[in-house]
């Protein structure tokens, strides 16, 4: 009885601490929202708002000519306009802040399942303090809501994969498929990842001697539900564009990613402002430029503007991109390195907004501490997270899930990269950080040590590669460009 009481007390204590951390996270995010208002709309934020207005005014969902974005985020904004008219965007931001509880909870739930209560609570504290992630709760990108669905989806999948004999396995997998499917309507990037992440579960079942037909039965059920969730939107696209597509951003991303120059949206808006102010723009290292002594002057391939149908136009762009990559293999390889460096650069959209003067003085007055805090959060999460995962991640299905997710986002990031695109990896990295803080590096096996060294060196090499632009962006953020002459 005493042992049971102790367990019960410990569980209650953990729940209280978990709730306290979630509350703290909410308070910080609401404080940020309060100080950030009225934050100016920036690039994609304005695009999402425009699509929402189109839905409201014409009752139809327009494509973006170069993209077909998933419909749920503009639909969410349209609903907020319906509910609160001019205060619609404020309502959207408040809902987003509230939804971040789901991200914090899922980070802690995964860490607890993989490690223990202490690491789960440290993960929670790190989630509270991760300023770049927190800032997305008041920005109008779909990242925050998407992660609020994807986090619990991942927690359910890991629970199902760790304990395949549990009676709730089927429900957990259905929950995974449902949440992942809805999140694809917010941000399509998880479209191919969702089925892929079922592989570790299939592998675990195979290792346990489960018959192939049974494995097929277990894995196919969430896949069917996932298909059902994305089907209505796909059928709508078949009706409108004549193509059964979920979303079409690949063609434009190939245009931006496999071309003679590439786009990093941490850099371009800052450079645009620098250019407007007559100041020298920030440049990547000379050998990584399309116009360089190594590559001569690569000519960018043009978009397939002659194709009027959107999926056909994006297909043509994709083909052109692949042909360009085949014709310039050296450039292709170098550009991937630059993009990976952009992906892990310790900058964020919070620092970008501070640089460009999109925040009012209520928040911008804390510019220097906010930039330093963001920099520390981004850099330490990457460095300690990678070391922690390499050193302390238990050999389990979750290790396979994390590895697949990491590889997937590195692959997508090597096409188009910026700090925003590493956001889906932040929860995993926070868990890695917490495990390193709590367990340290003692007693590691040789392969684990080698993995830690390889991960650290790779990250440092990418930071050195990207240092000219990263340092320039941080200097601009600390000074603020709006105040410049």
């Amino acid at each position: 009885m005493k042992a049971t009481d102790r367990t019960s007390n410990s569980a209650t204590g953990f729940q209280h601490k978990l709730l306290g951390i979630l509350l703290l996270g909410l308070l910080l995010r609401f404080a940020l929202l309060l100080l950030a208002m009225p934050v100016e709309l920036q690039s994609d934020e304005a695009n999402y708002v425009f699509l929402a207005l189109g839905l409201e005014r014409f009752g139809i969902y327009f494509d973006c000519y170069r993209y077909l974005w998933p419909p749920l985020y503009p639909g969410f904004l349209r609903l907020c306009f319906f509910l609160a008219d001019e205060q619609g965007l404020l309502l959207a931001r408040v809902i987003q802040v509230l939804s971040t509880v789901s991200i914090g909870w899922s980070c802690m739930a995964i860490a607890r399942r993989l490690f223990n209560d202490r690491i789960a609570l440290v993960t929670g504290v790190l989630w509270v303090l991760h300023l770049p992630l927190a800032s997305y709760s008041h920005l109008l990108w779909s990242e925050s809501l998407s992660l609020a669905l994807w986090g619990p989806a991942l927690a359910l999948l890991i629970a199902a994969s760790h304990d395949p004999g549990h009676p709730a396995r089927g429900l957990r997998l259905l929950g995974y498929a449902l949440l992942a499917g809805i999140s694809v309507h917010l941000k399509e990037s998880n479209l191919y990842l969702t089925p892929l992440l079922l592989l570790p579960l299939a592998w675990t079942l195979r290792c346990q001697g489960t018959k192939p037909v049974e494995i097929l039965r277990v894995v196919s059920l969430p896949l069917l539900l996932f298909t059902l969730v994305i089907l209505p939107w796909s059928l709508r696209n078949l009706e409108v564009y004549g193509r059964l597509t979920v979303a079409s951003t690949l063609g434009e991303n190939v245009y931006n990613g496999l071309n003679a120059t590439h786009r990093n949206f941490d850099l371009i808006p800052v450079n645009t402002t620098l250019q407007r102010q007559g100041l020298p723009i920030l440049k990547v290292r000379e050998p990584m430029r399309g116009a360089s002594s190594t590559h001569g002057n690569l000519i960018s391939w043009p978009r397939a503007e002659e194709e009027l149908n959107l999926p056909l136009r994006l297909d043509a762009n994709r083909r052109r991109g692949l042909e360009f990559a085949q014709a310039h293999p050296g450039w292709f390889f170098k550009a991937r390195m630059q993009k990976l460096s952009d992906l892990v650069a310790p900058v964020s959209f919070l620092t970008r907004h501070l640089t460009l003067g999109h925040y009012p003085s209520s928040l911008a007055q804390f510019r220097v501490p906010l930039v330093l805090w963001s920099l520390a959060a981004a850099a330490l999460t990457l460095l300690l997270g990678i070391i922690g995962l390499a050193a302390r991640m238990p050999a389990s299905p979750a290790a396979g899930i994390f590895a697949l997710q990491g590889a997937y986002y590195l692959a997508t990031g090597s096409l188009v990269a910026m700090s925003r695109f590493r956001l889906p990896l932040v929860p995993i990295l926070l868990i890695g950080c917490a495990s390193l803080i709590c367990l340290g590096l003692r007693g590691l096996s040789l392969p684990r040590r080698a993995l830690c060294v390889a991960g650290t060196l790779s990250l440092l090499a990418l930071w050195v590669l990207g240092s000219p632009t990263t340092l320039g962006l941080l200097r601009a953020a600390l000074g603020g460009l709006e105040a410049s002459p």
Partner: protein
Amino acid sequence: MKAWRGHLLLLVLIGGLTGLHALNHRNESQLRGDLTGFLGTSKSPGNQLSSLALIADLHLLLNRPEPISTAEGQRITELLLASDDPLLREYALTTDLCRLSERAADQIPEIQEQRVLGTNPLPLDGPWWREYVTYRRKVGGKQVGGRKRLDNLELGWYRQALRGEDPPREALFEHLVKRVRDAHVGPIPRGQ
């Protein structure tokens, strides 16, 4: 077999949705048939279909892979712009029709550009502001008429215009002049 009940249920739902889509699908000639009242010579497009239904049908017709010629696109644009209904006039300024428009020298859609910015002085009232936002603040670049993105102030005025109010003329004019002055000039500075 009991263990596969969930699969069967989901397959039935998937099949049902697909079947429903197949039943409701309209090919190009059916769409044209439904739009006869509008695509004919009638100058009152709202006679047979409500404006929203007409827009929904046009949206399908204009985005399908079957090529719509720019000549036909322009004819539809002109029909919409000649309408009494402000909603249809605004629809003529969307991506659906701007991408089919005749191009001016700098690739911008000529008919829509003339419609929104071709008068002097500019009306600067609520209906005009809705048209301006629909045309100039769209996503997709200058090929479809998009220049600059919507900002907070403009959004507020747009919400007012949706309620039938006019934006403040002087403030609007000054704001637009400022945005033109701040417009980015030259190639995108990618740092490469």
